[in-house]
């Protein structure tokens, strides 16, 4: 016969009640302390929200973060400049009327001033080759081949080409895939010691440059990154007063004139795939044509600078 133990019954009941209370109240409190609930601006007064927002968005509030950003930018520019020098070394520098290069940079700046990364100085140069191609290196160097420039028919199309390359740089497509790792390897440490500190990330930067060149010249970027750059081309031109449809016209013309074995097709998706993706993007975003005819002055200056290539 079971003997009723009143005290044990009370203890058990109390324990159960304690457990219930724990589940219902303590668990949420534990979760609250772990989540970002305490940082929800809705719960704070306006002044502290402004202060927190300013702190989180200010580039001066976190010295370590700012220093890291500066180092990353410095690496990016160094790698990009070296890659640009190799492209010039491979294809040759097109030396001609300096006004041609300035004209290209005016087109570039008229867009990058509005849509470009503010910490980058974008520059546009010309490579002395009849190959049809355009390159964007990290750090803001855009190099167009003489061959491509000869195929372009107006300033609108030229703006589209440059805008495509601006997109690659804005999104750091190439730099993200070749950026040097922050952790310093044993070999690199040894290099620095022996070189008395003069080789600042030399080995890893050089490796990044080579990987970047392999991407540019051999296998190209992933197709989705090229599609993203194409979207940048139409978006940036459309947003800065150029005709975005001109870029599509150029791609269509390239699709008909480029040999299937051309270098550009080694490093880019097919023109038909690019055109399909772009037309879909334009339709989805309701990008109405804002400039059907190339304004007179644009026509005149394009002919003045580009038809003598």
């Amino acid at each position, binding site marked *: 016969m079971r003997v009723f133990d009143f005290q044990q019954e009370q203890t058990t009941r109390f324990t159960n009640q304690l457990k*219930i209370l724990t589940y*219902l109240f303590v*668990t*949420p409190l534990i*979760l609250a302390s772990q*989540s*970002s*609930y305490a940082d*929800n*601006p809705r719960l704070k007064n306006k002044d502290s929200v402004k202060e927190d*927002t300013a702190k989180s*968005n200010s580039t001066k509030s976190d010295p370590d973060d700012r220093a890291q950003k*500066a*180092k990353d*930018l*410095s690496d990016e*520019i*160094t790698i990009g*400049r*070296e890659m*640009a*020098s190799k492209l*010039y070394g491979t294809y*040759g*520098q097109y030396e001609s009327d300096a006004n041609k*290069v*300035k004209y290209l*940079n*005016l*087109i570039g*700046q*008229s867009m990058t001033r*509005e849509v470009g*990364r*503010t*910490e980058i*100085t974008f*520059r546009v*140069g010309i490579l002395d080759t009849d190959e049809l191609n355009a390159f964007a290196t990290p750090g803001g160097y855009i190099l167009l081949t003489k061959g491509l420039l000869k195929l372009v028919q107006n300033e609108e199309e030229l703006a589209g080409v440059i805008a495509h390359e601006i997109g690659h740089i804005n999104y750091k497509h190439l730099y993200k895939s070749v950026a040097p790792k922050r952790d310093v390897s044993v*070999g690199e440490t*040894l*290099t620095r010691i*022996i*070189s008395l500190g*003069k*080789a600042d990330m*030399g*080995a890893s*930067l*050089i490796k990044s*440059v080579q990987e970047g*060149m392999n991407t540019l010249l051999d296998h190209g970027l992933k197709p989705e990154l090229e599609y993203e750059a194409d979207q940048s081309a139409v978006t940036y031109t*459309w*947003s800065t*007063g150029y005709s975005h449809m001109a870029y599509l016209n150029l791609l269509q013309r390239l699709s008909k004139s480029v040999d299937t074995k051309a270098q550009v097709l080694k490093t880019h998706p097919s023109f038909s795939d690019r055109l399909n993706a772009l037309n879909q993007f334009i339709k989805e*975003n*309701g990008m*109405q044509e804002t400039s059907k005819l190339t*304004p007179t002055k*644009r026509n005149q200056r394009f002919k003045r600078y580009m038809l003598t290539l």
Partner: protein
Amino acid sequence: MKHFKLLCFSLLISTSFFSAKSFADQKNVFVKAKSIQLKKDANNASESVAELSRGTELKVLATQGLWLQVELQNKVGWISKVFTSDIKPVGQAELLNDTKVNSDAKSSRRRSNEYAVSAAARGLTATERNRNSVNKQRSNRQAVADLDKVKVEDKEVDTFKKEGEEK
């Protein structure tokens, strides 16, 4: 079993409550463009509501394709996403000088010898360095230096843009 059910219930309540807060999070963006118009409607041809300069912080109210509906000092309008940035824009000189990081041409030329330095550290001879060199492409740094010298002033861009809009 009963306690297990209670635990699950309280966890469910807690999770849904705290995840709901994310919908209340307001996002701010910054104007990246040097100078841009805040539009009344989400299209390029719409009339201007205000002029915005670089660094201006905007509160995002809604998104429609490539456009953001934003609020600034009780003015509401639309701006294309391409003119905005999630972080406060900073110039190159400001960022690099502030942290004393050198990225000029001299520094780049110094780095051009680093492969030789690191190769020497690995004990390679000159022949091996050439054969194994990652610098298989020739470099033309003078061409890059020439390109770096091409300067485009703001006023020149203003004139260029204005001229380009003439019919």
